[in-house]
């Protein structure tokens, strides 16, 4: 190992794989840390052989070649790949990770390329806490990685292109889909349609998903105004209200998601500035267009920077790696850079159109009933939050967390944090950005108390 600390890539999803491969092909030897046992991340996860045949046609053309390219470079020792390795903490000079053996090890770093991806935006629907309610990503992972479904009859409730894709994938694998209930109105989609032409392949995939669902006779509802999950001990049905009807669909599982938000914990620990963008209705890390953060040596790519999907993430990974090479004074093909930047614009246009086609249903979140649980880890209801805001004049989410325990459980506010922020803002009568966001603390992922410090010398 050379004396120079390594270039670290965190995450081996589409962005991380592309960044690492680009760096390796330029003659560097990046170290890649990824939680999963195999590369691909969430978007480009390698399917379980038992499910690969029915799911193959949904896979982006880029997924398999990207995995192969990454694995080949890792086999040849040009990428130092650490699968099953979860990053738990990072400082300006050292990164800490929990390895597959249960030991915590650390390494210094010279450059960091962070590709931690996005996490689902969850909305606490009435009755969402009994067993049988899954995030959409969880349901999709079960199908792709374990070749099993979260239920015999699954309802898909939420909004976003992934809702439709996951429902169609379930149909293709022979799982009964009870209903697809999307809060976006048909009009939202039609208004965005011309701009969606920016990515004909993905538009075509979306249309194909709706066709698969129609052929399978799946009830499809748009413009959903209220949704509730029925069942005390476990999920029995979903009740869906639109302007025209209120209907109940029997099911034994619900997959739900209202979009994706960037995972910012590692950026937060490094003090990368994080800003609220009213247009996205969420918080984003500050970067230049090529993924450089204001913190020296820290680069960002993929859905953690901007949620644009797997293909855009792969492109961002490559672009970020090229920018890093430029910073190191390495020669970079300017034509390649120019092409990537043009492509990036196209992806950005498409992502903006998708955001218009599937807007976040803020009205549903504002209508959360007092007795609905917001933080399921700690069992904190909307009433507790609203009362704390009144009793202690709380105007900030970390304060609300300290007083109520909302966001103190296993998810550390990753799921309930955005909802808590909106409830506090509304109860206080201020804008979302005024109440801030939850501060990140290590460990970024839960750390088993049995974890030991690795005996051996640190890697670098």
């Amino acid at each position, binding site marked *: 190992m050379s004396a120079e600390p390594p270039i670290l890539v965190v995450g081996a999803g589409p962005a991380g794989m592309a960044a690492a491969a680009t760096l390796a092909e330029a003659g560097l030897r990046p170290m890649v840390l990824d939680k999963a046992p195999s590369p691909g991340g969430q978007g480009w996860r390698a399917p379980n052989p038992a499910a690969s045949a029915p799911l193959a046609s949904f896979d982006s053309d880029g997924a398999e070649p990207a995995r192969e390219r990454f694995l080949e470079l890792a086999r040849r020792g040009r990428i130092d790949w650490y699968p099953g390795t979860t990053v*738990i*903490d990072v*400082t300006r000079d050292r990164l*800490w990770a929990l390895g597959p053996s249960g030991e*915590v090890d*650390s390494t210094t770093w010279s450059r960091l390329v962070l590709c931690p991806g996005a996490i689902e935006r969850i909305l606490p629907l009435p009755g969402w806490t009994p067993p049988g309610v899954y995030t959409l990503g969880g349901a999709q992972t079960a199908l792709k990685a374990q070749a099993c479904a979260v239920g015999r009859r699954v309802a898909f409730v939420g909004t976003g292109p992934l809702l439709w894709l996951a429902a169609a994938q379930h149909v293709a694998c022979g799982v009964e889909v009870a209903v697809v209930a999307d809060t976006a109105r048909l009009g939202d989609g039609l208004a965005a349609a011309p701009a969606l032409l920016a990515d004909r392949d993905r538009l075509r995939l979306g249309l194909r998903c709706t066709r698969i669902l129609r052929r399978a006779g799946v009830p499809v509802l748009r413009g959903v105004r209220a949704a509730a999950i029925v069942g005390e001990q476990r999920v029995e049905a979903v009740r869906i209200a639109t302007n025209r009807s209120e209907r109940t669909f029997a099911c034994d599982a619900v997959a739900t998601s209202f979009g994706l938000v960037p995972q910012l914990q590692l950026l937060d620990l490094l003090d990368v500035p994080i800003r609220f963008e009213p247009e996205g209705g969420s918080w984003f890390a500050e970067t230049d267009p090529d993924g450089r953060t204001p913190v020296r040596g820290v680069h960002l790519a993929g859905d953690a920077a901007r949620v644009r999907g797997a293909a855009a993430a792969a492109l961002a990974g490559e672009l970020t790696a090229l920018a890093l090479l430029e910073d190191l004074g390495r020669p970079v093909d300017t034509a390649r850079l120019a092409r990537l930047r043009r492509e990036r614009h196209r992806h950005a246009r498409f992502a903006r159109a998708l955001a218009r086609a599937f807007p976040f249903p803020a009205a549903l979140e504002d209508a959360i009933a007092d007795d609905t649980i917001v933080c399921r880890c700690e069992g904190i209801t909307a009433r507790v939050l609203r009362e704390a805001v009144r*009793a*202690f004049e709380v105007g*900030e989410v970390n*304060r609300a967390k*300290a*007083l109520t325990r909302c966001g*103190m*459980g*296993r998810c*550390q506010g990753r799921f309930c944090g955005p909802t808590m922020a909106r409830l506090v803002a509304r109860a206080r009568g201020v804008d979302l950005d005024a109440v801030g966001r939850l501060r990140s*603390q*290590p*460990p970024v992922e*839960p*750390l*088993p*108390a*049995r*974890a*030991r*410090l690795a005996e051996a010398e640190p890697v670098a």
Partner: protein
Amino acid sequence: MSARLETEVLVVGGGLVGCATALALARRRTPCILVERDRCGAHASGVNYGGVRRQGRALAELPLANRARRLWGRLERLVGHDSEFRATGHLRLARDAAELAELERWAREARRFDVRCELLGPAELAARWPWLGPGFAGGSFCPDDGQANPRLTTPLFARAAREQGARILEGRGVIAVERSSRGFRVAIEGGPEIEARVLVNGAGAWGPAVAALSGEAFPAEVIAPNMLVSEPLPYRIVPNLGMVGSGVYLRQIPSGSVIFGGGRGVADPLTRRSRPLTITSLATLAEARRIVPDLARATILRTWSGIEGRMPDDLPVIGPSPRVPGLFHAFGFSGHGFMLAPAVGAVLAELILDGHSATSLAGLEPGRFATGALVAA
């Protein structure tokens, strides 16, 4: 520039000490303003371990600690809400004969202050708390000690003080202090200027900086505790646990979470930021697994730190300034002020209003460090 405010007492710092002082003054109908640069309880007062123990304290702190313990017992009535104080007892463990001798010495001396503890041998420890790990030479159990929720306690004192008539200005730091005919004229961020007869320095880690505004120097350093919390486990560890000497301390709350402390994180008083260190957290876990082996099954969800002031003798600075009339200090609690703070507020109010207190502060006076004044700028 906004208008000038006049008050009897200006309290600088909205930690538990400042808020308790404001409450004690307000209860005696004394006009009082508290200024806090961030939010009340934002720093050490809100993020500390939550220990409420007398066991193991320096004897100089015991009169104050005894008074504090009485206040903790009726805190809910005092502030109008449960601070989650529970007298769970505090168990202090000795690893060897020397540490055991220290437990015995402390128990003997503390008896003079009416603090009772039970000394237990290894067999008694194992019988009473079967989840304890092996290898302890003995322990001392103080049944009246306990624990409370620090995240709630300071906001509760602040709210109670406000309800009793104290004025609390958050988000306002002190910029300058000058003497005036009435006492002090204090400039704060965003105005107004405040004129007060008495000034209380309850600024915690920033206590020396506030003292410096009046020309006094104190030899304090800044420390950052390193805290961890686990996912809930079945509730078994009822007493608050600590070791002789420094080391790991831990407690479990009835909802199941285990809170661990030990070692140090890093803090920067200028940016007011602190951070736990993973290397410290791992060392804490290794030690905690020796104390309660079952904790190996726990999952750590979060670590955190805070900023505290520490004096060279590990004792707080409490009482009137030896040089500046009308100035009272209460800072430098050196990592164990949470338990004392309610009594500190009560005693300061007595010193300010009556000129004396029945509770002894011997050994804690600011004068012990008054070696030299700063040269006025």
